């Protein structure tokens, strides 16, 4: 796919998430109106009022969840807008973790952002950086049978930026360590993405950590 194709996907996704948000906004108002009406209706004339109230509360919570998801997906679709950008790495990691949590949850693995409080700004392609990080996480998840934690910690040394993605836990599939890991789909994809980013990746000996290194354009 070339950049035009990617921008096309971004554009359509941005449009549809916008529309989805409108759907959620309507559900929220309509259930809100029902809540309003219930609050001025007395118990005697409305059997099971409490049941209705808790159910409406659940609708509101789910709407809230939907709004968060659509807004993060919308933000994701805008990654295709600009290929060279000043990126707040911490913010990018938070965004990534939010979007990939469900992939990790399937394996009962928790994702942790280990960013220290200091802000790390890097000028690079945000979409490809997300993709590289996602590949690292997927790779480690594929090595994992079940359970544990993947921590992501960024570090900046001059113009170079390092992100270590490390699995901690007992769930690593022992057999995978002896396999030729460089032939895995995730690592092949990671390799080409890193080339596009003018960076490299390293795998540690125990196969439980991937480190990516990229240079900031500025």
């Amino acid at each position: 796919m070339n950049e035009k194709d990617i921008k096309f996907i971004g554009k359509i996704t941005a449009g549809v998430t916008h529309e989805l948000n409108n759907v959620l906004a309507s559900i929220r108002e309509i259930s809100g109106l029902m809540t309003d009406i219930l609050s001025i209706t007395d118990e005697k004339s409305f059997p099971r009022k409490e049941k209705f109230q808790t159910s409406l509360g659940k609708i509101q919570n789910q709407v809230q969840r939907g709004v968060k998801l659509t807004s993060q997906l919308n933000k994701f679709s805008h990654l295709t807008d600009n290929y060279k950008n000043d990126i707040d790495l911490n913010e990018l990691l938070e965004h990534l973790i939010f979007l990939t949590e469900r992939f990790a949850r399937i394996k009962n693995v928790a994702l942790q952002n280990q960013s220290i409080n200091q802000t790390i700004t890097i000028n690079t392609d945000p979409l490809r950086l997300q993709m590289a990080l996602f590949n690292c996480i997927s790779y480690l998840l594929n090595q994992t049978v079940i359970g544990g934690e993947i921590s992501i910690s960024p570090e900046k040394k001059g113009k170079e930026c390092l992100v270590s993605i490390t699995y901690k836990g007992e769930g690593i599939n022992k057999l995978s360590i002896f396999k030729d890991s460089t032939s895995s789909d995730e690592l092949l994809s990671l390799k080409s993405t890193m080339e596009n980013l003018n960076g490299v990746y390293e795998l540690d000996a125990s196969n439980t950590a991937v480190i990516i290194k990229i240079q900031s354009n500025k």
Partner: protein
Amino acid sequence: MEKIKILLVDDEKEFVETLSERIRMREHDSDVALNGEQALKKMDDDLPDVVVLDLKMPGMDGMEVLRRIRKAYPKVQVIMLTGHGSEKDEEEAKKLGAFEYLEKPVEIETLMKKVKKAYKSKFESSMMAATFAEAGEFDTAKEIRDSDEEQDEINKDKKKSK
């Protein structure tokens, strides 16, 4: 409590009509326009105190409606309500004189607070601006409004850092 007259402008019919009903339950006046042209016509017929305006609409877009309202009815405050807006949009809306810029869906109590604030400021700013304008101090009149906005920014930042 004073009854505020609100005009809601949004092409999402079910959303805007329900919102309108909820506002009326809170004992304010509320009317609905489904597009920019309709909104401007309603402004001519019956001037509201506050307009709640969607940014993205078919036909005349929200930014243009905002521009026209601020030009023709500078005393009417406009609250922009948008889906996934950008900082650029927010900047432009504020530059065009929008009172507030909120993301959809907004909690009704939050919206009502902003509406009341906009309503209050409509009187305060027009009274103060008139007083200072009489004295020839246009800049002071502008400053009063700007400092309000600054305070809002501070409050917003405080919320974020929580």
